[in-house]
């Protein structure tokens, strides 16, 4: 994990771009959550994330969700399916009977990127312990122990190549 204090009995599996791509393909109701860091990441990385989002939406009908103000950046390239606070979103996801943004029910795979690490960790903790009905994957540069799958700790360069790789696999 990124910060050693965040140790926990069951820790996320490390996800390669390939694993992520396969998981999305298998999912019935996938969602991609883009957090507020989108407004402050290096432009190159932001652009890569946005292209991944576009592809996911177009190819696999992934529900794109903007949280925490990422809409300011996101909306220039892509209209998300929903805009919501991250805690409100987690609270919905936690509820197995949530009807979803489209009235078709809850989601089964949630990808996250760009939600600040510490609040993301807490949100992932809620889902890990109280939402057995879904799986989570984080595509951030810091490994997230509370996710089901997570990218490893990455430098910006490696992160970029992970994202590119993912893009090529979708």
């Amino acid at each position: 994990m990124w910060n050693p204090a965040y140790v926990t009995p069951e820790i996320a599996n490390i996800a390669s771009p390939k694993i992520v791509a396969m998981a999305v393909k298998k999912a019935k109701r996938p969602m991609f959550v883009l957090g507020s860091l989108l407004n402050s990441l290096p432009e190159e990385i932001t652009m890569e994330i946005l292209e991944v989002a576009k592809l996911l939406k177009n190819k696999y009908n992934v529900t794109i969700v903007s949280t925490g103000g990422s809409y300011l950046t996101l909306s220039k390239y892509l209209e998300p399916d929903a805009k919501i606070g991250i805690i409100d979103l987690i609270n919905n996801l936690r509820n197995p009977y949530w009807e979803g943004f489209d009235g078709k029910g809850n989601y089964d795979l949630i990808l996250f990127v760009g939600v600040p690490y510490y609040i993301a960790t807490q949100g992932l903790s809620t889902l890990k312990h109280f939402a057995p009905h879904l799986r989570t994957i984080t595509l951030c540069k810091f490994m997230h122990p509370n996710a089901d799958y997570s990218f490893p700790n990455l430098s910006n360069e490696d992160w970029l190549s992970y994202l590119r790789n993912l893009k090529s696999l979708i």
Partner: protein
Amino acid sequence: DYEKIVIKGFEEEEEKEVSSNYPKLREWDHKLLSYFKPFYSPLCSLCCLCTYGKCDLSKNRKGGCGINLEKQQARIVLLACCMGAATHTSHARHLLEIALKKNPNLKLKTSRDIQVIAPITTTVTGVKPETVKDLAKILDMIEREITMLLAATHTGQEGDSIDFESKALHAGLLDNMAKEIGELIQISLYDLPFGEEDVHFVEIGLGTIEKEKPVILCIGHNIAPGAAIIDYLEELGIEDKVEVCGLCCTAIDISRYSKRAKIVGPLSRQLTFILSGTADVVVIDEQCIRNDVLEICSSMDIPVIATSEKASFGLPDLTDEEPDKIIRDLLTKKYPGALIRDEDKVGEVAVRLALILKEQKKRIGLDLRDKQVLESIKECTECGWCNRVCPAMLPIKEAMIEAKKGNLEPLSNIYEKCVGCGKCVEFCERNIKLVDLYRVAAKERIKNEKFKVRAGRGPVTDVEIRKVGAPIVFGDIPGVILFAGCDNYYNGNDLPLMAEEFLKRGYIVVATGCSSMAIAFYKDKDGKTLYEKYHGAFDRGGLLNLGPCLANAHAIGAAIKIANIFAKLPLEKNFPEVADYILNRIGVCAVAWGAMSQKAAAIATGANRWGIPVILGPHGSKYRRLYLGEEMLRKIKDRRTGELIDTEPAPLHLIYAAESLNEAIPLIAKLCIRPNDTPKGRLIKLTHYIDLSKKYLGYVPEDIHLYIRNEREIPYQYKEEVKKILKEKGWKPREAPKEPSIL
């Protein structure tokens, strides 16, 4: 007349125990939490409290005692709230003991403008205290109930998460009451400002401390030692020769007591300032003291005077020694410090020590030390552990790489955002004193760290309440925002930015504790702080520093007084009615953007019980539990008709953690909406809500349809966009409740 009867009743019943009637409050809690459901985010999924364990409660499994992860979270929240409440209670108790020692018959301060001096206490217990002795009974009750609540956290006691939460809410309420009592005592005993809007300005910031003078630094939350130091200086007539300054709430309190006292800054500056070597003597009282303060001061030859049995730091108890002997023992370094449980003796010892030590001190030593600190930059191996353990995730490694190249600017930027926790130092392979390095890199900035804050004014007056009661309840004043709690957030300007955004719009902004300091750390282009720019009255566009953490009681008190003075609600033993009124009719929202402590948990939970919503910063999610409402029409009662009606979910949440400033600002505006708003009031509130949402999020809020009852409430400038949303959502106009209530 009514008052007299109550007081008489109290005298007659003197033998009867004062009580909060917890069972009645529990009923309110269960009702409240049926609207705002606990949401849990475990920070740790293990329990290690008993020897059945450690138990792994992951995935909501049960441990050896039968508790599951959800209940365990509620239990830990209760424990934290008990710790917080105990801290404020014990603080108030200490002030009470000093008051009884100095003047056993001390009357509580009153004023023509303030009739109900203890709104929280009176609402909960029915008692209207007049003397310090009256408060002793209330404190007895609080201590009794904290003990009961703490007992409920023991293995094998409470077994229901909502009941754990009810107890946490109760701990929060007791915390509020203890704070009110503490404030009343210190205001009365030290004759502090009591609801003055034009209170004096205080200098704040590391740059304001005059290093040429002997410097006494007071750290903590308890006014007693600092006040005694000021008294002793005045006795000697050398108050202009010695710099008395403080960190945390002690600083706020001594600067209420003396116009000369200065505020170094909030908690986040503690380590930095001590390491700067500016202080000649450090006096610690209680709360918010770094646990390694003695170790650090010792390494810099600064004697530490401990003054509280709660934070004795292993120091010898020299309370009964002569000042001469204590001073000699400290000068000869027989001890690194002393525990002196007599504040008057502390006053003398601290001053005399500072005068002697200043003489001995050589400025050169400090400059040399700073140079050595800079030298250590080249030791960095770029292992990156600093980045990994930084709670703010600041780019420390990257700043070090730049520093090696001779560019200190990035390190100096770290200083701006750093909360001085020192974890980077602990994990550094080469033991580089990074926190000190940020300070040295930012030396020039620090010189200019000079700001002004209005001194803590104490309660809001009845006169003010009478003026703003109606506009607040009807929504013409769009809201009252309370900025409270520690300043452990990671961007120096968040708080001033938020405050000004709402001040500009005519909201009333009140601040307490480290938040009231943080708001001062910003100047506009004319070099003015917000306190200089905005007036200090509890009225449209006013910015009030209510005082220290204890002063949060005044913010809640103001809400209670609106219910009492404007709406004529009787207070005595009338908690559920008053809280229901606040929840449904008073547009107040608290923001604890950098909340760190268990006290903050208790304060916020107490506010929640009164129906006041709280927004936390992203790290606030670590408190493990939020109270979330549902984003849909809410069924509540219209008491006028007795019918259940569908109305807006306002306030939407009771306590929520925001991901970012951008999310928080529109949310603050939204959480000021109340079912009771008049159409005009609602229109004003929605205008700000949409405005801020567009500015900070980039869109018209998608839940806007929930808050519009009829077309007149649609802000004119957003008519098109809003109508589009209303159409999409199948919106229909609806009646506003006349007397909204959840009772």
